[in-house]
């Protein structure tokens, strides 16, 4: 648990002065109650004490809002939610946004050391009280560590770009779009910007912007009949030897290099292991060509980090999968064909300086429906904001 920062910035309205040991200590029912909310943990731990403390905090004057928001710094997600709900109660008790301590909230918002979601909440409170001031604040937030604040700031840049485009100022519009693209960490916004830039004749490197990994070594297929291969331990999980010949589902298999040309980094395993050709007299298949079924492949890549650092591995995959980083299991999920999207799974990891080995086990089941053909994944390495972490001297993506 991160120590609770006792910022006594605004709770004085509910504080009283006590003489303790000859010194003066500011005692505040709010700040005294916040640790109980921060102490909640898994499986309901601390809920009872938190409920009592919540009642005290929810009854506070609006001047306590910066303290309540600051208590979110380093708090676990459950504690942050206790605090989040208290903010609603305090704002309602104050009679709405118009009666909030806007200057204090703006100061809190300006301190980027605070929890990104707490800062976003402070922004929303300011916006409710003074929309014009909030809108002006966004101009300095295109590189903000809060993904949502950055998104709104980038949206303003996009709006300006669209105005320039409408006015026929294509060069200036393109420059504005490119500025927005470089800053954006929101997937839908990035995709919209890529289209806008290309429409104006510009170029974008989506693969590099996201940090998708394109180059892999793949081996398979291994057996996944009745889904039993998910739990089975095949040789790549025990020892990585890219020169080895391994026992696959239907004979010896070996590692093959694969470089995806998809700009969103999708590695389509069906292309590496196409299904057997149908008999010559078979009627033409309707819909997508069905790939192998009841199979497993492994994909491995080496990711070079310039330093020891925290990072996120983000995966999109509609097949069951497991991931290891440097031989250590990161996460696994046994779910087939429920959908795939960019950043579907976010996994905090620690990269070590130099080469890091990322191993993916990707499992295909035996369903035979039009939506169960895909056997693929997309993986990127980024920070917690979504900024791509690129290996040193990483070259731009060459279109394939």
């Amino acid at each position: 648990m991160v120590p609770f920062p006792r910022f006594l910035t605004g709770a004085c309205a509910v504080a009283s002065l006590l003489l303790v040991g000859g010194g003066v200590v500011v005692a505040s029912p709010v700040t005294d109650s916040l640790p109980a909310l921060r102490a909640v943990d898994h499986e309901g731990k601390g809920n009872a004490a938190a409920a009592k403390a919540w009642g005290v905090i929810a009854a506070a004057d609006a001047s306590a809002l910066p303290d309540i928001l600051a208590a979110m710094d380093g708090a676990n997600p459950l504690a942050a939610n206790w605090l989040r709900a208290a903010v609603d109660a305090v704002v309602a008790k104050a009679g709405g946004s118009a009666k909030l301590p806007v200057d204090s909230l703006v100061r809190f918002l300006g301190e980027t050391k605070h929890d990104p979601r707490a800062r976003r909440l402070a922004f929303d409170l300011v916006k409710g009280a003074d929309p014009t001031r909030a809108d002006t604040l966004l101009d300095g937030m295109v590189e903000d560590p809060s993904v949502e604040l950055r998104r709104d700031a980038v949206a303003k840049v996009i709006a300006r770009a669209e105005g320039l485009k409408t006015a026929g100022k294509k060069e200036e519009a393109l420059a504005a779009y490119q500025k927005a693209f470089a800053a954006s960490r929101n997937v839908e916004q990035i995709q919209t910007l890529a289209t806008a830039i290309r429409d104006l004749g510009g170029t974008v490197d989506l693969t590099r912007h996201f940090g998708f990994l394109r180059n892999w070594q793949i081996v398979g297929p291994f057996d996944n009949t009745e889904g039993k291969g998910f739990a089975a331990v095949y040789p790549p999980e025990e020892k990585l030897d890219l020169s080895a010949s391994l026992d696959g589902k239907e004979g010896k298999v070996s590692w093959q290099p694969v470089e995806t040309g998809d700009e969103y980094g999708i590695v389509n395993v069906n292309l590496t292991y196409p299904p057997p050709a149908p008999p010559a007299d078979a009627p033409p298949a309707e819909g997508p060509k069905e790939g192998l079924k009841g199979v497993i492949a492994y994909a491995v890549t080496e990711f070079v980090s310039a330093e020891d650092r925290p990072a996120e591995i983000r995966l999109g995959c509609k097949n069951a999968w497991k991931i290891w980083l440097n031989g250590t299991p990161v996460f696994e999920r046994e779910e087939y064909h429920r959908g795939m999207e960019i950043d579907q799974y976010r996994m905090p990891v620690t990269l070590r300086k130099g080469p890091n080995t990322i191993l993916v086990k990707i499992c295909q089941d035996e369903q035979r429906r039009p939506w169960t053909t895909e056997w693929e994944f997309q993986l990127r390495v980024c920070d917690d904001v979504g900024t791509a972490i690129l290996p040193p001297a990483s070259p731009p993506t060459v279109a394939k």
Partner: protein
Amino acid sequence: MSRLLSLLIAIALVAPSLPLLDDELRADEWLEFRGVGGASRVKEGSLPVELSAADVRWSVDLPGRGLSGVLVVGDRAFVTTSEGPTQDRLHLVCLSASTGKILWDRQVWATGRTMCHPKTSVAAPTPCSDGKHVYAIFSSNDLVCFDLDGNLQWLRGITYDYPNVSNSLGMSSSLLVTGDTVIVPVENDSESYSLGIDAATGENRWRLDRPKGANWTSPVILKPGLVALQSKKGIDAIHAADGSTAWSYTEGADTVSSSALADGVLYVPSNGITALTLDPADPAKQPTQAWRENTLSPATASCVVAGDALYTINGAGVLTAGDRETGKRRWQLRLQGPYSGTPVTDGKHLWAVNEAGLVQVVELGAKEGKVVATLDLGDEILCSPAAADGALFVRSNTKLHKIGR
């Protein structure tokens, strides 16, 4: 004397606590998904048959999207919503049932995954209430308990606790509270559980391993302290106090539409509809199969039960009436579909709201059904309506409407 009548008399004499008798249908309450017993039944004559635009008493903008159903507790209506670019801002909103004024709005952030199919939403499961508190869950498996005045009692992050509890298409199973236990089904392809959670503290009473497989169905209270959990394998009757299994029906069941209980009979979407007659003296004993009728298969909407009939809507929007005693099909009527929400009935009429927001009132005859009134809300409606205070409460991705008195 018919078998059904005999059964009703037996229930009334032996087990007065068994749902679903008329005296349990309170006109001012709708405390869970599909109301008492999940039968979507209201007292006869409690809803307006003639409908016009003037019957829309109020429509209120909601702070976010969702398709969860509405609760009505006295003069308060409760609904969940989700908003933000990733739907990670989760709201529980309390409104005046009579005026639609928002009385309070509490938010938490999603601690679990918010990915879901675009047609659904993170605010998909319907909350429940014991009359003093509201328990709400979201597709991210964030679970909260507030009192009726908006004071937070406890919260949980089920996926925060058990990281593989999720569904990439979205979760939608609704909650129940019985006695002092909240029933929390979070069944999915991977880490598949149902939990019994202490209604006072939010701590686990029990956590039950459940069949692995995506499951969007909702539980049903068989009697106070005994609930039916539905999965692809069938039905398990579970003691709410300790999670122990009273009995199991193992002949499979749907994973979308849910079962409904009425007058001691559980109508299960299994091989069409299978009627399981509970032991009137002790519903914890293995039930007997009264009948099975495969022509009554429901689609997304669950079956509804009232009078001497039950009703299902198939994927083509065809309403089918079946005889409750035999399961035999009585008549069919093509409605304007499609439907995601389960209709409401008082036994004489049925109120069905299709995805385009068209309310169709069907007169339920012995030999045929007839649409006698319609009202176009002009709003996409995917929720199952709630009925209380002489009105229907339906919500869209943007609004909550009250239709009726």
